[in-house]
């Protein structure tokens, strides 16, 4: 371990706190006298969109690297839906550690992965909802990280949590502890039932292929942009309670809720980001938000 740099990649969605997870991890490591970095992947920040955050931790020398992390030792996935959406294990070193927030069992979840890795699974969402009252798992997942890697100590989190959350530091710390207790560790290997999923790879233009002035000629091409990928929960309508008032249609910020021929409303899942505003606004509680599988 000495002199080696341990690299962590956090996968989350905008608003879930992946950046906070990385920051707290670095502060804890620095508190212990180690050298550490935390940084986000800079870009347009959109609630619900897949986002990345990173850590580098080194025991006895400063970290000088100023580039992105492509071959991480540890990958932490805050949002269960991301596992089937993007290649969360891309570049994960053989023998590395994959930590996933999921309600699924280890046996079920490992079908999605193809590699020789340590797999740690915890239902962080339930813990966060129970102890913090919100489905934000950034601090909870720190417990799983500690359990799976031992990279930082629980005690080192006290100060950073206190500074960050004040009065709520205690409950966040408890959530972190409980997550560590509930984290299930296993070893997964390549081959067997597992198949390498193919994820969409964006084809990027060569400079010669760019149109003059980088003009975009396909008007309305955002229609093909699947913002529906961003959601971790989706609305479901109980038509028995629905009075067809259309308040959900009016409030939907994405404009993806439409009235059907029978007068009831539905969201276009290709665009729905799962924000939950429709469910919040519904007079008759006809809409409930359901976790993505």
């Amino acid at each position, binding site marked *: 371990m000495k002199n080696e740099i341990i690299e962590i990649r956090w996968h989350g969605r905008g608003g879930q706190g992946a950046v906070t997870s990385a920051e707290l991890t670095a502060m804890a490591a620095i508190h212990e006298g180690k050298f550490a970095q935390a940084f986000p992947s800079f870009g347009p920040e959109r609630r619900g969109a897949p986002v990345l955050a990173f850590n580098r931790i080194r025991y006895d020398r400063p970290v000088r690297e100023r580039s992105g992390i492509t071959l991480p030792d540890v990958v932490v996935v805050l949002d269960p839906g991301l596992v089937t959406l993007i290649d969360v294990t891309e570049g994960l070193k053989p023998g590395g550690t994959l930590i996933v927030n999921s309600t699924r069992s280890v046996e079920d979840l490992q079908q999605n992965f193809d590699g020789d890795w340590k797999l740690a699974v915890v239902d962080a969402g339930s813990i966060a909802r129970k102890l913090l009252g919100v489905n934000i798992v950034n601090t909870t997942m720190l417990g799983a990280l500690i359990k799976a890697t031992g990279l930082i100590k629980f005690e080192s989190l006290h100060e950073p949590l206190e500074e960050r959350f004040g009065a709520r530091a205690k409950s966040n710390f408890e959530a972190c502890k409980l997550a560590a207790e509930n984290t299930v560790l296993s070893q997964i290997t390549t081959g067997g039932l597992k198949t390498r999923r193919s994820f969409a790879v964006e084809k990027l233009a060569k*400079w010669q292929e760019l149109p003059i002035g*980088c003009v975009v000629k396909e*008007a309305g091409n955002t229609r093909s942009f699947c913002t529906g990928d961003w959601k971790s929960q989706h609305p479901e309508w109980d038509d028995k309670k629905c009075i067809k008032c259309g308040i959900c249609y009016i409030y939907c910020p994405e404009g993806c809720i439409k009235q059907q021929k029978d007068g009831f409303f539905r969201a276009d899942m290709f665009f729905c980001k799962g924000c939950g505003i429709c469910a919040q606004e519904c007079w008759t509680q006809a809409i409930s938000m359901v976790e993505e599988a």
Partner: protein
Amino acid sequence: MASKRIGIESSLGIAEAVKLANVDVIAAYPITPQTHIVEGLAEMVANGDLDAEYIPVESEHSAMSACLGASAVGARTFTSTASQGLILMHEVLMVAASLRLPIVMVVANRALSGPLNIWGDHSDAMIIRDTGWIQIFVENGQQAFDQVLCAFRIAENRDVMLPTIVHIDGFHATHVIEPIYILDKKTVSEFLPPYVHPNPLDPDNPVTMGCFAAPNLYTETRKALDQAVRNSRNIIDETWQSFGTLTGRHYLPIEEYKTDDCDTLLVTMGSFSENAMIAVDRMQKAGKMVGLVRLRLWRPFPTEDVLRAISGAKNVIVLDRHVSLGGPGPVCSEIKAALYPLEKRPQVVGIIGGLGGRDISPENFVSLVELGLEKIKTGQTGEMIMFGVRE
């Protein structure tokens, strides 16, 4: 070809060229540091002599922004500014180039604050060097008239599609009444084909311009833009050849004056080149073999032409009318960089002078050359040499 020789202020001669180019839109901020160029155009539009939209905006930033919109819908677009006005435009200049909008602008080169000084030098031009605009320097009113017409033809060429600046020295050239041959309308309309944007802003065929490029694309966009600026050279050459054939007035990226058999060459840019020519005449008459190399095309930088003109010389003295505070003069450092790959290089000395409206007369140029040669002789070429400073 028909033309009429008249006595006219260079700025108004430029306005005549813009009128002959039959522009559709002029957007300009009319207050200091502005010239008679846009004042003349405003009058032409107001009097009905020029059928164009004249947009008097509230700042130069807005002037260039209005030009972007006009050029993007396919309108032939012109503006003019100088000094502080140009640097207030700076942000939008970058956008004009990256959107590949063939706006033509005349910059009356002047100093920058502070202290407040709007007299002539090249400070404003040098600050906007890297914006992606084609940049041409002229020495007098006739050249400005000619180059404005050439600028539209170069900028709007489908293989170029880049904004273009004609730099003319503030006051020393812009405010001088001199004889200019004004071409007739028919000649200009034959020389200058209409501007057609390949993908204009059009409600019936909507396009997006100016979207963002993440790190995975930005490098490619800059490469494409740089290549476009470099490739524009072919069209610049072709345009100047056609113009030369048409009018008998020939232009080259690097123009040499009496350089044969000269072991010392002076390099200048802009209107002071005319003073330097007089100095060269006098020096050669006195038996000193000093020639003059004038840099006309600043971007794309004509590296090969520079080398052809100066690599055989023993001594090269470069005048910069701008101080890169704490660094080498910008023109001189580019000349030096061009020479560096050669095995055998001339001695190069950079001299800063002609700042904020201070003259460098023909007599001064003789002294400037003597100073340069003295510095080369004593091996003091590395220091910052300022000409005509009280000390």
